[in-house]
């Protein structure tokens, strides 16, 4: 059966060239990275680590010692939020975030709330934007941290990070952003955008799973979460995942200048193709300030799990924000925060793209979506004028 993978916002295919770059660090150069006073294999590993760090530092405009390797964006988010909150406890107990963050941010902050931190969750507009004015007004003298995502994992809505960064900078509040979905998709400059902490991960840009980075601006106080050695500038202990780190850097190097343009074209092709053939399709998110990799649509009058099951039978992998699909039987909190009704979330489907998708796959998907939605609308009691 034909396979069309359109769940690239969950994870991506690890590029063969990335795997090739990693293999020697399992089979041949497997020593731990250690100081210059160590044995030669250790120094070789250290060089590979430094080189990878440089690649990633350059990509986001950071200094070498500001790039900390972690096990992924979830760890980076936890480390940033809990580490900064604990280190700045004496200065204040107030944290500001948005209502549409990834679970790793959301739940890390909730864990702090249980410890007595106060939290303001900023609402979002129906396109998914927070208001920078809301943010300004929410900052008080106890505020120690603002954590607002770069772009949304379900709808692709991109926040005005530069403005958020300068507000935080003016008010001397630490600013963390989860950039897992936007890294490699949008240009990021941590200095220009006044970002103090930034979480990214390899597996969303065709790198390996299990490796990420937390950028920590020089001078930001953070409590160590992982103890057991001086690794990563004494900020995160544990033997470095050198093959993963090398793979991460390789994945960054492989992002070509044409890639984003190409993915944008795929997204537009799918959107145009579907909306031309089906009515009562609503875009969840926004046209302009949206990631090229994510398209979230609601097909009115049908239920999302039914849609994705049918699509799966045709070899197409996508996800839905329907309550029927979630582990808590509740519709996506992101869509709910954007003001979508239960019914609208019920029929929402997220398509997410990568450079490995083809135009032919998109056309196949348009046909499949058309067939499935048409069929389900025929049996739905709420479809008007069947």
């Amino acid at each position, binding site marked *: 059966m034909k396979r069309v993978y359109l769940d690239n916002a969950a994870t991506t295919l690890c590029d063969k060239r990335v795997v090739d770059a990693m293999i020697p660090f399992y089979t041949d150069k497997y020593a731990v990275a250690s100081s210059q006073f160590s044995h030669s294999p250790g120094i070789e590993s250290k060089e590979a680590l430094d080189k990878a760090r440089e690649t990633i530092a350059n990509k986001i405009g950071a200094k070498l010692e500001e790039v900390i390797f972690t096990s992924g964006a979830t760890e980076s988010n936890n480390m940033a939020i809990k580490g900064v909150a604990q280190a700045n406890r004496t200065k204040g107990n107030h944290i500001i975030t948005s209502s549409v963050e990834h679970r790793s941010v959301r739940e890390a902050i909730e864990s702090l709330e249980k410890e007595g931190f106060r939290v303001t969750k900023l609402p979002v507009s129906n396109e998914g934007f927070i208001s920078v004015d809301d943010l300004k007004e929410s900052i008080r003298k106890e505020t120690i941290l603002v954590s607002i995502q770069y772009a949304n994992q379900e709808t692709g809505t991109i926040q005005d990070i530069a403005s958020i960064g300068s507000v935080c900078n003016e008010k001397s509040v630490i600013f963390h952003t989860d950039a897992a979905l936007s890294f490699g998709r949008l240009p990021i400059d941590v200095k220009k955008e006044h970002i103090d902490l930034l979480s990214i991960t390899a597996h969303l840009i065709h790198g390996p799973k299990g490796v990420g980075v937390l950028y920590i601006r020089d001078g930001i106080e953070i409590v160590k979460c992982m103890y057991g050695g001086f690794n990563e500038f004494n900020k995160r202990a544990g033997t470095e995942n050198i093959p993963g780190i090398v793979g991460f850097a390789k994945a960054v190097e492989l992002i070509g200048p044409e890639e984003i343009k190409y993915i944008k074209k795929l997204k537009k092709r799918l959107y145009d193709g579907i909306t031309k053939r089906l009515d009562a399709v609503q875009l969840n998110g926004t046209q302009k300030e949206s990631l090229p990799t994510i398209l979230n649509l609601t097909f009115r009058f049908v239920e999302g799990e*039914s849609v994705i099951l049918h699509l*799966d039978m045709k070899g197409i992998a996508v996800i839905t924000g329907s309550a*029927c699909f979630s582990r808590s039987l509740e519709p996506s909190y992101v869509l709910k925060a954007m003001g979508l009704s239960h019914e609208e979330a019920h029929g929402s489907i997220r398509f997410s793209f990568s450079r490995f998708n083809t135009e032919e796959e998109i056309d196949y998907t348009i046909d499949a979506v058309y067939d499935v939605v048409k069929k389900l609308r025929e*049996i739905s009691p709420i479809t008007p004028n069947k």
Partner: protein
Amino acid sequence: MPLPYSEKVLEYFKHPKNVGKIENPDAKAKEGSPACGDMVTLYLKVDEKTKRITDIKFESFGCASNIATGSIITELAKGKTLEEAKKITWNDAAKELGGLPPVKVHCSVLAVDVLRAAIEDYEERHGLIKERVKTTKEIVFKRLKHVMNPLVGLDIVKTNIVKDIEIEDGTISVMMDVPRDHQFANNIEEEVKERLEHLWDIKKVEVVFEKE
């Protein structure tokens, strides 16, 4: 790993049976609502003399287990008398389908309930119904047996998570043995309310969760 559905569920999902509308039905019913997720409608044609179901059709705004259960329940009910059809249970449907994942049980219960509701509608229209009775604890418990505990796929009464029920001045308070931050708390609350709010002598339904 295959999908969490049996082959039969998937087969009925792919090729649902008895879907659509019946023009001028003898009875019809609707369970659930688009606002809270799944919704299913059902239409009946009944032979007035024999009280046999001669035609039955359903429509679903729901997930796979809802569509599959609707198919099986209509197949089971077709040709049966109303009294026989009343006795079809969710268990019968689930057995025919080769089982359902626990978390999905609540979606399929809707399809069973809509059949009963349609039969009641028929009885009401044909003057077969007795007087309206006052809502009692017993009636509430009976209704709550249709609310599933998604964790295990059994109803909330059988799984002992309903601690107690109080009825006073048109308000039902349902005391739950689960905390507010339970994975399915919101879902259970929504379904409990949906089951009870339509009772004719009830104005308000409260779901009280355990204190943390």
